[in-house]
């Protein structure tokens, strides 16, 4: 399917044939979809955005030279599209302060804690939200995040520190207990 594409090799020398848009798509679909999902917290919007990212990849595959380049490109384009999407629907943005705090009841099972963390991350402003998602979903270093988002490393570190403090503050306000 698709048009001819240069053979793409990853760092280990494994090649992907052109048609291997299919293989590339299947290899990276969870990454792209999850970036969009954690950013938007809307499955339908995340799928639409992820589809658009892969269609854009399909058109540009010939200009991408390695598997690492494809991964970098996908993260970068997905991040940019997430920001664009968020700006288009900015009127409906909910600030971190507006997010309801978890109820102060019995200890929360981990799955609920995860859900609360996802909600709080999704309520962060756009740039810090992307930084947090790239850090904890993709396990990127601050330098890699800076390269992907085109911002200084110091800004990335600042976003990480402030976002973690905000999240801890939100949860601690209820629990009154922060793990060091």
């Amino acid at each position, binding site marked *: 399917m698709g048009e001819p594409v240069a053979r793409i090799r990853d760092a280990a020398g494994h090649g992907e044939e052109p048609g291997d848009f299919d293989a590339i798509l299947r290899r990276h679909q*969870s990454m792209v979809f999850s970036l969009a999902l954690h950013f938007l917290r809307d499955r339908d919007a995340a799928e639409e955005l992820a*589809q658009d990212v892969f269609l854009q990849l399909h058109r540009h595959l010939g200009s991408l030279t390695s598997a690492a380049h494809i991964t970098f490109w996908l993260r970068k384009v997905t991040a940019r599209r997430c920001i664009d999407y968020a700006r288009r629907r900015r009127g409906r943005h909910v600030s971190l302060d507006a997010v309801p705090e978890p109820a*102060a009841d019995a200890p929360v099972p981990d799955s609920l804690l995860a*859900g609360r963390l996802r909600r709080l991350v999704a309520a962060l402003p756009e740039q810090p939200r992307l930084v947090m998602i790239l850090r*904890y979903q993709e396990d990127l270093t601050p330098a890699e995040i800076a390269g992907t988002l085109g911002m200084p490393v110091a800004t990335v570190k600042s976003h990480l520190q402030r976002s973690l403090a905000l*999240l801890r503050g939100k949860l601690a306000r209820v*629990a009154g207990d922060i793990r060091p």
Partner: protein
Amino acid sequence: MNRFDEADLRDALRRKEPPPGFAERVLRRAGREAALPGPRPGPGGPRLTGPRWLAWAAAAAIVLAAAGGVRYYAAQQERVAGEAAKAQVMLALQIAGSKLQMVQARVRGAGDERAPVPDRRGSGS
């Protein structure tokens, strides 16, 4: 517990699989897009259609026309400036000529007033 560390964040933000059939839907859309007739937009937007030489010829014609226009305009400006300078010189010459005539007239008038008086010394003693 309402406390967390980085491992909790990694767990909360771990990758999720897209809905079933996601890849097939993307492949269908890509196939439909590839089947569309006409040029496909590149990274910089829509591309020019037609032979490449035609685009180059059009670009060259535009550049030549622009250069010719600039030179014509510069020549026109030069000619207008030259004519203005010529008019100014002519005016200056006219003024200088009339002043010269006035000076000549005054000099002549002064000459008439100083007409020589006959010397009578020695003629009556």
